[in-house]
C-alpha cells in the first residue's frame, strides 16, 4: 500500500539536551487508521508536533503526501488537520467564526455549505452561535475536530482524542472516525487507552522512550504476541498439582478445582493435547474447559516490560 506519510531518521533533541525522538522511521498507509500507542512521555505528541509543523525536527525528514514538511511546508500542511490533546480555544469567539477562521488560515476560500455540513455531522449546528466558553468539554472537543476538518484535509491527526471524554461521546467519536475513513481520510491517533486502539486501528505502532518498538497489523500483532489461557475445571478438587504435570507450569486456584494453563499462541504445538492426555493418565476427570485470549492491553504491557529488561 502506498505511504501517505513517510518519516525517515527523525530525531528531536531539545535545547535542554533531552532527546524526545531517536531516529524514527515510520510509514503511514493511505486510508488507514493508525494508532500510536505508548506510555506518557514516550514521544507521541512530539512526533505529531513535528509532522504538523509546530515543532522543528533536529534531524531526519518527513514527507506528507510526497511533500517535505520543511521545504514544501505549504503543500504538506494543507493536507493535514490536527486535533491537539489540550482543549484550547478563544473563549469569546463563537463556533461559526472559529471554524471559518481555521478554513481561511489553511488557505481555502470560504464555503458556508461545507462548514454547515461539517457542523451538522458533528452535532454542532445548533451551537454555531454559541461562544466557546459556553460549551462543555465534549462540545469543545467537537469544535476542535470541526476546526481540524474545516479545510478538508486528507490526513487527520487525533492526539488523545478521547482523553477525559465520557463513554457516549467516545462511541460517537469512534463512529465519526470510521465515517472519515470511509470518505478516504487517513487517520493517525495517539492514545494510551489500548481499548481504543483495539477497537479502531488497522495498524498499531508502539513507541517508548522516543523509539518505535514495533509497527504491526492489529490482528497480526494480537495473534503473534497474544498468549492464551486455558482453564480446566476438574470434577474433584485436588490438593496439589501432580508431579507428572510439572512441565506445564500449571496454576491451581485456591479451591483446588481449577487448573490454569497459559500458553503462547506463537508456538504451534501439541502441548494442549499432551496436557489433556496426561490429565487423564493421572486419573483427573475434566468437568469444563475454557480458553481466553490476552487483550491488546496485556500484550502492550508485556511488550513494554520485555524491552525494558
Amino acid at each position, binding site marked *: 500500500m502506498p505511504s501517505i506519510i513517510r518519516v525517515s531518521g527523525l530525531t528531536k533533541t*531539545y535545547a535542554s539536551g533531552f532527546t524526545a525522538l531517536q531516529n524514527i522511521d515510520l510509514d503511514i498507509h493511505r486510508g488507514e487508521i493508525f494508532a500510536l500507542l505508548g506510555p506518557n512521555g514516550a514521544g507521541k505528541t512530539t512526533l505529531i*508536533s513535528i509532522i*504538523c*509543523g*509546530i*515543532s*522543528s525536527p533536529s534531524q531526519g525528514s518527513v514527507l506528507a503526501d510526497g511533500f517535505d514538511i520543511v521545504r514544501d*511546508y*505549504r*503543500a*504538506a*500542511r*494543507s493536507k*493535514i488537520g*490536527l486535533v*491537539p490533546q*489540550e482543549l*484550547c*480555544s*478563544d*473563549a*469569546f*469567539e463563537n463556533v461559526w*467564526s472559529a471554524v*471559518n*477562521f*481555521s*478554513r*481561511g*488560515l*489553511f*488557505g*481555502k*476560500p470560504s464555503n458556508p455549505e461545507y462548514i454547515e455540513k461539517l457542523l451538522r455531522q458533528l452535532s454542532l449546528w445548533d451551537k454555531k452561535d454559541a461562544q466557546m466558553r459556553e460549551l462543555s468539554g465534549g462540545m469543545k472537543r467537537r469544535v476542535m475536530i470541526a*476546526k481540524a476538518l474545516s479545510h478538508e484535509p486528507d490526513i487527520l491527526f487525533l492526539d488523545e482524542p478521547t482523553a477525559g471524554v465520557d463513554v457516549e461521546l467516545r462511541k460517537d467519536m469512534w463512529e465519526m472516525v470510521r465515517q472519515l475513513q470511509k470518505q478516504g481520510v487517513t487517520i493517525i491517533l495517539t492514545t494510551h487507552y489500548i481499548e481504543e486502539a483495539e477497537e479502531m486501528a488497522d495498524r498499531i505502532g508502539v513507541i517508548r522512550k522516543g523509539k518505535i518498538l514495533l509497527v504491526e497489523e492489529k490482528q497480526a500483532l494480537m495473534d503473534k504476541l497474544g498468549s492464551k489461557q486455558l482453564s480446566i475445571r476438574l470434577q474433584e478438587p485436588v490438593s496439589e498439582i501432580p508431579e507428572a504435570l510439572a512441565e506445564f507450569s500449571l496454576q491451581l486456584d485456591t479451591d483446588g478445582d481449577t487448573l490454569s494453563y497459559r500458553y503462547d499462541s506463537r508456538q504451534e504445538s501439541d502441548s494442549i493435547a499432551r496436557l489433556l492426555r496426561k490429565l487423564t493418565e493421572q486419573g483427573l476427570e475434566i468437568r469444563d474447559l475454557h480458553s481466553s485470549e490476552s487483550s491488546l492491553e496485556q500484550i502492550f504491557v508485556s511488550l513494554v516490560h520485555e524491552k525494558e529488561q
Partner: protein
Amino acid sequence: MNLYAIRAIYKFEMARTFRTLMQSIASPVLSTSLYFIVFGTAIGSRMGNIDGISYGAFIIPGLVMLSLLSESISNASFGIFFPKFSGTIYEVLSAPVSSMEIVIGYVGAAATKSVTLGLLILLTAQLFVDYHIQHPVWMLAFLILTAITFSLFGFIIGIWADDFQKLQVIPLMVITPLTFLGGAFYSISMLPEPWQTLTLFNPVVYLISGFRWAFYGVADVNVAVSLGMTMVFLLICLTVVWWIFRTGYRIRT
C-alpha cells in the same frame, strides 16, 4: 501568498477589537479628551503660545503620539501573546502560512486599530481646541508609519513575554516616560542644557517632532531626520521579527 490566511487573522483580530470596543477605542479617546480639557482648555488658556501655536493646539500631536504608541504596542503584543498563552497558537503554527503572512495579519490589524484610534482622537480634539493641519498627507504618513513600527515592536514584546507582567512592563516603564519626556507637552528648546542635548537620545522626540511639523510646519529637529529615525526604528523591528521566525524564538520548540 496565502491571502485567505492573512484575511482570516486580520478579521479575527479586528473582531476582537469590536468585542472590546469600550476598552480598545472608547477608553483611550476618553482619557485623551481629559488631557485636552485639563491641559488644553483649563491650564492652556493661562499659558503663552509656543512657536506661535496656542498651547492647546501644541500638545495635540504629542497626545495623539502617546496614544498611538501605547495602543499599537498593547494591541499587537496582546494579539500574539494571548494565543501563545491559551495554546491556540498551535493552529497558526500548523497552518500553511509563512511568517510574513502571520506578521501582516497580526501587525496589520493592530496598526489599523491604532490609526483609527489616532484619527478619532484628532476628531475629538476638534471639540476642545481649534487647530488645522498644514500637511495632511505627511500627517497621515507619519501616523501610519509610526503605527506599523510600534505594532511590530508590540508583536516582538508579545513573543518575548511569557507572563502578563512582562507584557505591561515595556509600555508602562519605557514608552510612557519616553513620550512624556519626548516633547509631548513642551518644545525641547525650552529645556536647559544638558537636557536639551540628552533628550536627542530619546527616539520618541523624533516621532513627535516630525508629527508636529506635519500639523504646524514647526519642528524641534529637522523633519527629514525625524522621518529617517522612524524608518531606522522600523528596520530594526523588522530585523528582530525576521530573526524571531528564523530561529523559532519562543514560538517553535
